């Protein structure tokens, strides 16, 4: 069987693995981004315990490798009498990593909001919550969009680490096929191309969006 026939034969299985990878990334972003916003607001809080807790959560999440976070969840939850399947562990671990990293990008975005527009909102007697909701967060998030898109591409690649906690995402599927067929080079090359087929166009898109946003400012 030549390489292309081998790829064609295994493609449906690999595509299912890619689907799991995309699901992992999607769920991590879905849960991680709101948490990242909360952490970003928390690190700027006037309440000292809230601020310190947020900073600690962010620094640990960014300082520890994503692989360590995954293992802590995978080996740690059973000690709390809960043994979810690998997929759930992966979503929990990747969500925490996402929240920690995105909080820094969002914080950077929030800082870029001009003090003038905040003062204007205050002068219009908007409540602090409304200032946050209608003035700071919408403007700040817009600034953070390119960085967040870049991170989304990163976390999609990081989902490959879920292989190590028995999740059958793309890398794990490729690894399984590799050990049954003994054609490691070809199957991992296909896996690499499938990842690249998502990440490369996505990074072009990120560049385009970044250009558009910087032009508007």
């Amino acid at each position, binding site marked *: 069987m030549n390489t292309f026939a081998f790829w064609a034969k295994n493609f449906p299985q690999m595509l299912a693995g890619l689907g799991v990878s995309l699901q992992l990334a999607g769920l991590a972003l879905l849960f991680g981004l709101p948490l990242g916003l909360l952490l970003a607001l928390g690190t700027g809080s006037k309440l000292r315990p809230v601020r310190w807790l947020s900073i600690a959560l962010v620094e*640990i999440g960014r300082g520890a490798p994503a692989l360590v976070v995954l293992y802590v969840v995978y080996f740690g939850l059973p000690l709390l009498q809960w043994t979810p399947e690998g997929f759930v562990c992966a979503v929990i671990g990747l969500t925490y990593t996402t929240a920690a990293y995105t909080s820094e990008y969002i914080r950077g975005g929030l800082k870029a909001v001009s003090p003038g527009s905040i003062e204007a909102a205050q002068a219009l007697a908007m409540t602090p919550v409304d200032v946050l909701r209608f003035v700071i967060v919408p403007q700040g998030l817009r600034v953070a969009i390119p960085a967040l898109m870049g991170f989304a591409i990163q976390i999609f690649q990081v989902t490959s680490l879920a292989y190590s906690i028995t999740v059958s995402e793309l890398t794990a599927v*490729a690894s399984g096929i590799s050990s049954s067929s003994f054609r*490691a080079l070809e199957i991992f090359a296909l896996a690499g191309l499938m990842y690249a087929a998502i990440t490369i166009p996505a990074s072009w898109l990120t560049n385009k969006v970044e250009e558009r946003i910087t032009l508007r400012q």
Partner: protein
Amino acid sequence: MQGFWAILMAVPYTLLVTAGAFLIGFILAIPLTFLRRSTMAPVKALAMFIIDLFRGIPPIVWLFLIYFGLPVLKIRFNPIEAGIIGLGVVSAGYLAEIFRGGLLAVHRGQFEACKALGLSGWTSFTRVISPQALRAMLPGLATYFIGLIKDSSIASVIGVTEMVFTATTYARNSPEGIYVFFVAAAVYIGLSVPFGLMARGMESRLQAAGAR
């Protein structure tokens, strides 16, 4: 306590993989950066494609390609070599982009002044352009190196006995094994602090040298 020492003993492997991958990435990134700056469209496009490919494929897949894939072609590496090369390839992609940014930060007038003074390409690059570019790149390089310390943990999947590999071995054999991961996490965070400080020190020294 035993786990704690086991993790500490594995730190040199973590640092070896990190430093090796950074070095290989650095060396590979130099030609990539020049090709990326080429005025010939096909050369430039090819360099961009290679950089995108290096960065767009997850490190774990590069490691598997090199460690399990290349032996098909009778090219064999031990886990440490494969880990260093695989992470080096990924680093080359990221470092090439950092280099490009650093060169863009050098004012065009500097290139023109070199030409006007009749300096050779080599002299103008080593004496004029790269010192200035290096200063602009340093924060990016430091951030990348610190990130690479964490990424070196991925080499555990092909059996490099660095910190995470040691921790997983320990965790599988003992019910309280989870604690070694906390130790590992603390060591990773602890490692990034001195490197961060070192980078900041280098940066201020280079800045002072530039001001002179």
